[in-house]
């Protein structure tokens, strides 16, 4: 075990993969000499060489297209998109190609790669350095979508993603890259994809969240514990595949659900969770499902504190959900 920040845990996982699998190749903007703008790839080019940790020209479609080509040939590329906000020049490669290669070739051409991208707000990044774009990709069959919230999960989920036979989009909550630290198992630590984690047990209300929202939800739960409300916090960790049994089991226990994400509400990932609860857990519910999300506007710069769900807004939603019905 080693005490690490989340971004250090990402770095350790990448280092482990590079060390143990010669097929692993990293490519992206400013990831080599500079070690990544968030230092996620710090030291890796120095230790593994410029053939395996590649500084690319400024072209996301080029990065993802080339990574796809590598994967088709049998390598395990790990492309980095510098900010998730800049993924859109590569949208076509991700949605039309990466997600569909296996399918359209009748299984002949699997395309296992892990696309890493920091996402999310709370860093004063404005419109284009703050977005939480997971829903576009969760909506695309053929892709897996993973979002860690702790250093140990960041390492464990990343190593599982690299070992996975399908393409994985691995979105890293940059806001808590350095603010969250924790013990991380050394060596080949794996957290299986598709398993949620109950980060706090409770009996009155279930809160479903992921990424940078997890510490805020936990803080809100602690606040409510003082008022005598017992809140269960479930970190989904993998949006696709979703750990549906964990979702349903928690709501069957508590009868109340609050869903938290920083992306806009309309057609956000929370809408899918709410729909599943309506379809499969309606008779367990004692209150309407409640969503706490970013608002349905682009991401504002000066007023990001109001835009983003904070502990107060989350606690308030839990409180009224606990009382409802």
């Amino acid at each position, binding site marked *: 075990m080693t005490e690490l920040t989340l971004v250090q845990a990402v770095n350790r996982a990448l280092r482990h993969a590079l060390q143990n699998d010669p097929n692993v190749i990293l490519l992206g903007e400013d990831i080599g*000499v500079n070690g990544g703008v968030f230092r996620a790839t710090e030291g890796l080019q120095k230790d593994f060489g410029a053939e395996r940790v590649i500084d690319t*020209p400024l072209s996301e479609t080029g990065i993802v297209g080339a990574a796809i080509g590598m994967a088709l040939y049998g390598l395990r590329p790990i492309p980095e998109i510098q900010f998730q906000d800049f993924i859109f020049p590569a949208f076509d490669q991700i949605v039309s190609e990466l997600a569909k290669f296996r399918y359209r070739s009748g299984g002949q051409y699997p395309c296992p790669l892990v696309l890493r991208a920091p996402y999310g707000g709370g860093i004063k990044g*404005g*419109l284009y350095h703050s977005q939480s774009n997971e829903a576009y990709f969760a909506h695309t069959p053929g892709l897996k979508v993973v979002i860690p919230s702790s250093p140990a999960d960041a390492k464990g989920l990343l190593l599982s993603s690299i070992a996975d036979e399908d393409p994985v989009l691995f979105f890293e909550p940059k806001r808590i890259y350095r603010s969250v630290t924790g013990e991380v198992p050394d060596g080949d630590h794996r957290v299986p994809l598709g398993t949620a984690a109950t980060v706090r047990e409770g009996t009155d209300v279930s809160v479903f969240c992921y990424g940078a929202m997890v510490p805020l939800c936990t803080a809100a739960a602690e606040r409510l514990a003082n008022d005598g409300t017992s809140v269960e916090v479930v970190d989904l960790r993998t949006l696709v595949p979703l750990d549906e049994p964990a979702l349903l089991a928690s709501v069957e226990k508590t009868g109340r659900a609050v869903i938290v994400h920083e992306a806009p509400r309309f057609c956000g990932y929370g809408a899918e969770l709410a729909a599943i609860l309506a379809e499969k857990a309606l008779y367990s519910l004692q209150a309407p499902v409640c969503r706490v999300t970013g*608002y349905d*506007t682009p991401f*504002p*710069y*000066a007023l990001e504190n109001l835009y983003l769900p904070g502990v107060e807004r989350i606690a*308030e939603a839990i409180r009224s959900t606990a009382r409802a019905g």
Partner: protein
Amino acid sequence: MPGLVLADRAPAETTSAPIPEPAPAELVRAYRTMVFARAMDERCLTLQRQGRIGFYVPLQGQEAAQVGSASALRPEDWIFPAYRELAVALVRGIPIQLLIDQFFGSGGDELKGRQMPNHYGYRRFNFVTASSPVGTQISQAVGTALAARYRREPILTIAYFGDGTTSSNDFHAGLNLAGVFQTPTIFFCQNNQWAISLPRERQTHSTTLAVKAEAYGLPGVVVDGTDFRAVYAAVAAARQRALGGGGPTLIEAQVYRLGPHSTSDDPKRYRTDEELNAWKARDPLARFKLELMDAKLLNEDQDHALWEAARQEIARAVAQTEATPPVPPLSFFDDVYAVVPPALQEERRSLEQLLAAGTVRP
């Protein structure tokens, strides 16, 4: 490094009239704008270090390229900037109060605090609001040029972007469209030798960036971007050509980014002091100052006065911005659509209630 216009293909093919030299008063005004931009840059870097603004993208080293290019335009020409074009904005006459308000995201910010510092734009100055994703403005500039031609309005559009951006989707898309439609567009690439940590020679194996124009059937021009006059002449010629029906031009202004990519960047990680110092010796401000002094258009006292005036005006603007109330908290719901839709009105009401109850604070 060439010190003069080195046309890969003569931009003068369809140019009729020779380009007149800027008048002495224009030269002095251009220098004053360069001083202003540098002074503002220095001030903003300090403001960022002090935590008074959140972020900043400096332009130092690129003043002559920016002032030279923008001075060759007419106010009706549309500018599509990237995020580093402070001196272009100043030439356009955008008041510094507006810019400082934007940097602070204060209540005076006409963009209503929506964007990070440096990402501004003002319709009345024909200066289109910048975005962060690189390159997107290039194809947009072609569309605006097509629209203006359709309306028989004799303007051109100019897209500013960096060396790294020549690898973007829209560089290709934009130059290709412009070539096919022969639009009155100038593609003004400031090759500052770096795209964050990637050096120019790792960005493309092309000999120059300008040579890329060849493949799209447009002229490509390399110009010494530390030389105000050379840049001015290149852009003025391209403008004349474009408005005479001669089509678009790609201009590569060779400059150097003397500062960090942004306040989040540490260039020591990827480039050497030797390289930096070699380019510092070619500082566009120092060069222009000497030229003006040689021509007896400027002396040390006048130079000193320009710097003083700039610093004072900037200090006044900063003070005024800091005395301005913040952006109204519920304003971020506006402008998503022409009319706030009912569902969004409801979201706004819910936040209003949270604010009124003191549950959340701006």
